[in-house]
């Protein structure tokens, strides 16, 4: 059985401008959305606060729950239905950070039991103090940062045999981060600065494969974040894990295409770069679609059947895998092409 006929030749690279416009629009939309919302929607893991998951005996409206919480002055919390319908489960989010957080779970339980009887079941309580929230946020950002750094080093070293260059890049980057962190810059800005530095260094040190791969990764994570903001989902620790998995997945895809490009560049030295690239994408297309397909199957299974706690995690993976597959074809490779056109050997010959 075959989905993709051998010898297929779709002109992916020729449609790169459409793809760029599409990607650009999505990224722009994400940025606008995030600015409009005043930053990402942090869950209790990062913002601090309390989250309580309760199971009621009968259908209850969020408004009724809020009313019951008024007794303990927690009626300004956010109450949402959660999980499958007919389970009567609700999430209560309390954003207060100035009060004693440790007893809130208890107070919620008590007030709900007085209002709805003893059948109320507290299924989960997550309390994160403001200081811990800040720590976790930093940890998560550093995790993203380090994974991108190590990946950049690995790709440049592995693909272009420029281990020395990639080590130089790592040292430069570590230096810049060290200096800027000395000025007390917030971690968010630190990451943005680090990313810009990484990209500039890739450009100047001629690490084109790393450049393509990293831009594709940023593209995927940003767009997934956009979908998160659009569907009003919260960022939590496990979502960060999902983002990093997307990073790994997107890279996996990109590397397989890049591997083919390098192989074909050696085989067909005389062919124009653009043609070789397009051929490589087409040759790996069957694999790309198949692997994305099987991965999507299991993620959809998780998304539909995995239950409320894992729902957002599966959603992140779902969006990420789709966007990651798209970006390895339409973003990572065309960036190689643009780089080759601007800075590559052919461009230099013309000059």
């Amino acid at each position, binding site marked *: *059985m075959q989905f993709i006929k*051998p010898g297929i030749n779709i002109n992916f690279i020729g449609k790169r401008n459409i793809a760029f416009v599409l990607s650009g629009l999505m990224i722009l939309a994400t940025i606008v959305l995030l600015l409009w919302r005043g930053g990402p929607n942090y869950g209790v893991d990062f913002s601090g606060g309390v989250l309580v998951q309760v199971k009621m005996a009968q259908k209850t409206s969020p408004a009724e729950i809020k009313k019951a919480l008024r007794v303990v002055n927690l009626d300004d919390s956010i109450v949402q239905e959660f999980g499958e319908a007919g389970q009567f489960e609700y999430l209560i989010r309390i954003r207060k950070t100035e009060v004693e*957080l*440790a007893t809130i*779970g208890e107070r919620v*339980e*008590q007030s709900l039991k007085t209002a709805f009887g003893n059948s109320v079941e*507290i*299924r*989960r*309580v*997550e*309390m*994160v*103090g403001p200081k*811990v929230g800040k720590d976790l946020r930093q*940890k*998560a950002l*550093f*995790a993203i940062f*380090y*994974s991108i750094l*190590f*990946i950049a080093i*690995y*790709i440049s070293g592995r693909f272009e045999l420029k281990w020395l260059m990639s080590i130089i890049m790592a040292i430069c980057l570590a230096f810049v981060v060290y200096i800027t962190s000395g000025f007390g810059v917030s971690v968010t800005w630190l990451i943005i600065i680090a990313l810009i530095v990484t990209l500039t260094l890739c450009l100047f040190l001629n690490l084109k494969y790393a450049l393509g791969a990293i831009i594709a990764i940023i593209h995927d994570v940003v767009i997934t974040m956009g979908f998160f903001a659009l569907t009003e989902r919260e960022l939590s*620790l*496990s979502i960060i*894990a999902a983002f990093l*998995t997307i*990073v*790994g*997945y997107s*890279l*996996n895809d990109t*590397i*397989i295409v890049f*591997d*083919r490009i390098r192989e074909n560049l050696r085989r067909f030295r005389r062919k124009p770069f653009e043609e070789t690239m397009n051929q490589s994408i087409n040759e*790996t297309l*069957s*694999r790309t679609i*198949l*692997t994305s*397909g*099987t*991965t999507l*199957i*299991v*993620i*959809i*299974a*998780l998304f539909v*059947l*995995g*239950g409320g*706690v*894992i729902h957002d*995690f599966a959603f992140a*993976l779902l969006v990420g895998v789709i966007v990651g597959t798209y970006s390895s074809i339409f973003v990572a490779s065309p960036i190689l092409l643009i780089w080759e056109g601007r800075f590559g050997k052919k461009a230099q010959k013309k000059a």
Partner: protein
Amino acid sequence: MSKSLTWRSTIALLAILVAVVYLVPSITGEVPAWWSNILPKDKIRLGLDLQGGMHLVLEVQAAKAIENHLERVVDEMKGDLRKEKVRYVTLKRKGLDGITITLMRLKDETVFRDMVSAGYPDFNVESMPEQKGRPVFQLVLDPKAKIQIMKMAVEQALETIRNRIDQFGVSEPDIRPQEDNRLLIQLPGIKDSKRAIALIGKTALLEFKLVDEENSVQEALKGNLPPGDEILYQVSVDRETGHERKTPFLLKKRTALTGEYLTDARVQIDSRYNEPYVSISFDARGARLFEQVTGQNIKKRLAIVLDGKVNSAPVIQDKIAGGKAQITGRYTTDEARDLAIVLRAGALPAPVKIIEERTVGPSLGKDSIEKGFKSMLIGGIIVILFMAIYYGLSGFIADLALLLNILFIMAGLAFFSATLTLPGIAGIILTIGMSVDANVLIFERIREEVRLGKTPRTAIESGYAKALVTILDAQLTTLIVALVLFQFGTGPVRGFAVTLSIGIVASLFTAIFLTRIVFDYLYVKRNVKRLSI
């Protein structure tokens, strides 16, 4: 060729056997004694999110420990000064830095300095400007000693809490120190989180203080607090309405006796009111002190203060010898039992604050496991069917690899006695999707080679060879991400990183090594002519 095939098959079978052996304890639950003597008995542990339980991060208020230490030193020094006949005007703690002292006479300076360097090596004496001809000194606590005190406080808090939890009875608790004076506590399977928090978080500082009977509380409340006195409250909660009632007490600041002399605390039932109370016993020194205090203050009231709240203030009827006392209050049996535990385990050296709490009820954990496995089963079956339909016999071989992969991940979890969390299950599910990737890459290459007109045997050979580099590249980068996740992640995220990492390594083994054996057996040894791919 066939010789190497035998070898490889042996390795593969051995690997599978080892994996099965590692999995047996997790599947059967209990292993016979002969098994645990020679074979692995570690089980896959379920994370708190799957089995239910409680995850707490406490912050030891280490500054308070320094404060306490300085207060103690002040008391000690007062005694020493009296002994040395050095008279002072003031002697008190100055923030967290040290102690200030104003001496009465200039000539006492050398005696004082000698006393400090001999008895208080942790302090540096600094002369301050004189006040009205009286010498003023500052005793600065050495920063190293400060760090030592904080470290000790954290260690002691950890030991005390471990003691309390052990006495409370939790199976496999995990208590460990973390940076920034924090303690991480994991209590699997705990049902009453409220009670656990009360038990762990209580400082349990027990003090006995005399009630000041000469002055009136009302006067003191208006702001005329007699020197050496303090106001503490008795808080009683009405069980029906939940209302708090606070009764003020005017107490002597000086502590007559503390809980550090306790040797035992037990729950007993009052036969008259059928209410539980806690009976405590002091050691010899404590008993002597108690006898002294009670003997000197007959018909006066002695307040029992727990963590700054007055528990009760009974009138001393007679001198109490033998070192026994009772703490009464309107306790439930559980409350009395927990109070006895915390008193037995001793007070925390400094108060602790709960800065993170995650509690998962047992029913939710069970739900999560069920749903996780259900999605794994259904997703897995679809992928398996799909591969078999798409690649024919080769698809079956890939499916075999996939199933063995799951076996190896599970065995790997048991081997590292790693913790399986909900995101961990997601990691396994993800590996199911991604582990076929290696085989897809190989099969697509083989198909390409076949199209070029190669025989099955050579097609397989070059297909594997060409795909190998790509597979390694792709899997290694994912492994990098997984390792970073492991390094920076906490709790469930770590569980995800663990399963992902094990999954990547296992899938390299199954997808490249194991499938190749089957292919070689079919198309080299049996010389099957038609390649089903």
